[in-house]
């Protein structure tokens, strides 16, 4: 009974021989099946299928999902194995991908661009070989930092070691921190390892050190530096880390809108996506993927194409529902249109104190107008109110409408076009804090006229001063060259009151 397998387990790291037994079994299982496509009456395949299931051909790579799941035919398995042979090698000899390689030329070129970006100033211009005696410490601290960072970005491990250990350049804590982030973004795992291990904080690996790892992971993700991402994850960086004020690494990855990157994280790095997104105080909402800076000039088609690849990894309903607000915030009409198309809510948001409509009116020009139209068409409530808290007296909160926000906005035509659009669409000028009061306060005469034309109450209550005592009132009266009561009366009677400071000056 007691058979100790002496040598069948070739791994010196596995205390059990189960894996090699499984390999033996699988080899025999494949050998038992017939090779013909058409199974004869006497062929054992039917029995095998009954006993061992339909997927009896497995990948031999232990880390591969097909090691467990298998394939129904030998041909399918062999085709899959091809994918593991990575024939596109990185030409840089000191790069880990020189031996590992990539599956396609596209992956290779993406890697070269992100990991081996050559800076305008070649680092060879910094002569460090014959520097015995000559000290670079005469450089200003900031220049020292740049010299080392240049070497870091170009993955020159020996140079970096020399500069830091021998020349003692930029050895302060914050410079080291910064080099780690640069290395994570542009360099190789070897250099990153050295920087992390020689980092002053590495000695006492406490919470601060983990924070460095998480930040580095975020930097690597931002530059899609795949080797470093995998390395940092294996070293214990937490992709779910809550690193306020910057976004968590997972969110930064999602914001790339790159399905391949997410696939790499999940399949190759073993990242498990959370079924349920953490509470807002633990991690910012997944709706933030619509606040991405990476789709600034993307067309609707491009957005659709990239989201199709990203979608399998966006598992959280709130990402879809609340994306509108972030899309509006980004000021990109195609992005907003897309987020509405996939079911984004034109009214609700998971961020207190704002709505998609309010975000879109803050953007000037035709983009802002287009987004307002889009949201109204999708059913956004034009008269919804937002909450405004007095920063000094927090109990003194007041509601304001989108129209109020437009009425106080500066720049361009001072929000006139947008206010006109809103008023034409039945925006109520007498809701919440009075837009008219705000316009008078700022002396915006044309805005005052517009609001009065659409029925704004000329003497709004609930303010500290009455409207005619406001400082801006003088400007309004001067603009129309008439007293306030006169202005109100004539505009309400339907007169198109002409005004202008220049004419007055004449």
């Amino acid at each position, binding site marked *: 009974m007691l058979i100790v397998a002496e040598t*069948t387990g070739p791994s010196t790291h596995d205390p*059990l021989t189960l*894996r090699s037994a499984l390999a033996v079994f699988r080899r025999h299982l494949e050998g038992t099946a017939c090779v013909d496509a058409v199974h004869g009456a006497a062929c054992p395949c039917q029995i095998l299928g009954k006993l061992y299931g339909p997927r009896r051909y497995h990948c031999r790579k232990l880390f591969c999902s097909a090691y467990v799941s298998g394939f129904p035919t030998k041909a399918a398995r062999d085709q899959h194995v091809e994918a593991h042979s990575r024939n596109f090698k990185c030409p840089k000899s000191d790069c880990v991908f020189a031996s590992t390689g990539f599956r396609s030329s596209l992956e290779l070129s993406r890697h070269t661009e992100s990991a081996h970006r050559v800076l305008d100033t070649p680092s060879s211009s910094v002569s460090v070989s014959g520097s015995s005696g000559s000290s670079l410490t005469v450089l200003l601290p900031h220049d020292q930092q740049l010299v080392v960072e240049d070497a870091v970005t170009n993955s020159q491990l020996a140079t970096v070691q020399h500069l830091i250990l021998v020349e003692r350049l930029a050895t302060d804590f914050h410079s080291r921190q910064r080099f780690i982030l640069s290395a994570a973004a542009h360099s190789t795992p070897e250099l990153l390892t050295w920087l992390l291990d020689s980092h002053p904080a590495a000695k006492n690996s406490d919470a601060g050190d983990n924070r460095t790892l998480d930040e580095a992971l975020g930097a690597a993700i931002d530059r899609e530096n795949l080797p470093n991402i995998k390395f940092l994850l294996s070293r214990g960086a937490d992709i779910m880390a809550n690193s306020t004020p910057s976004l968590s690494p997972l969110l930064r990855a999602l914001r790339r809108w790159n399905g391949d990157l997410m696939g790499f994280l999940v399949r190759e790095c073993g990242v498990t996506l959370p079924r349920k997104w953490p509470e807002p105080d633990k991690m910012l909402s997944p709706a933030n993927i619509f606040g991405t800076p990476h789709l600034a000039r993307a067309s609707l088609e491009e957005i659709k194409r990239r989201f199709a690849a990203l979608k399998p990894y966006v598992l959280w309903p709130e990402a879809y529902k609340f994306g509108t607000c972030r899309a509006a915030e980004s000021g990109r009409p195609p992005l907003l249109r897309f987020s509405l198309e996939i079911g984004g809510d034109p009214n609700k948001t998971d961020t207190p104190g704002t709505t998609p409509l309010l975000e879109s009116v803050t953007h000037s020009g035709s983009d802002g107008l287009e987004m307002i139209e889009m949201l109204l068409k999708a059913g956004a409530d034009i008269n919804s109110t937002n909450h405004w808290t007095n920063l000094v007296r927090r109990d003194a909160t007041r509601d304001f409408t989108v129209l109020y926000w437009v009425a106080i906005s500066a720049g361009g035509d001072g929000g006139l076009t947008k206010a006109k659009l809103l008023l034409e669409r039945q925006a109520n000028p007498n809701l919440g804090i009075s837009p008219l009061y705000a316009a008078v306060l700022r002396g915006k005469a044309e805005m005052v006229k517009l609001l009065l034309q659409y029925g704004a109450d000329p003497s709004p209550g609930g303010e500290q001063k009455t409207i005619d005592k406001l400082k801006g009132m003088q400007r309004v009266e001067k603009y129309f060259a008439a007293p306030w009561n006169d202005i109100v009366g004539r505009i309400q009677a339907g007169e198109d009151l002409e005004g202008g400071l220049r004419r007055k000056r004449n």
Partner: protein
Amino acid sequence: MLLLFYLTSDYLGRPANRGRYLLDEQSNHFMNLADAHLKAALVCLTYLSYSSLDTLFPETEVSGIDGQILGGDFVFLEYSVLEYMEHIKGWMRHKRPQDSAETIFAALGRLFDDRGSAAFDQSAPSEVFMGEFAPFQSQPALQRSLASAASFLTGARIGMIEVDGEYNDNDCWKLGLRQSC
């Protein structure tokens, strides 16, 4: 025994479903989760120690494996090799009755006796993995073996260990788990 035959009988369909059946709703929550993990772990461990599996282990392969395959001797092999660790971990996660520990200790001890690898170098596993198996503290040898096994499985899953079971030293950077690269 009855349980094992029950599990591996045909009507459950694909092998991947066998065993998991214990934990699923289909069984009408016949067992609670801790109990289910315990029973499933015991089934896996016991099965892997069966003498009918001995043919798969020695270096010089013996004839008759093909016959055994057709006879259905290995129907439970895939599942138990791939999942036994998950069940042990599942059992540890839940509140454990004292007596259940003894049965697990016994089954694991037998497994390491029967299927232990002579090639394994006895270097101490990392503390992370040792800590994970704290419930085995009273059995230091078992704890060490389990921690090494778990460390190996983790390494395998994240691509540290190539098909022949050896660490790929060129890619050692991939793993912070191993200190001595």
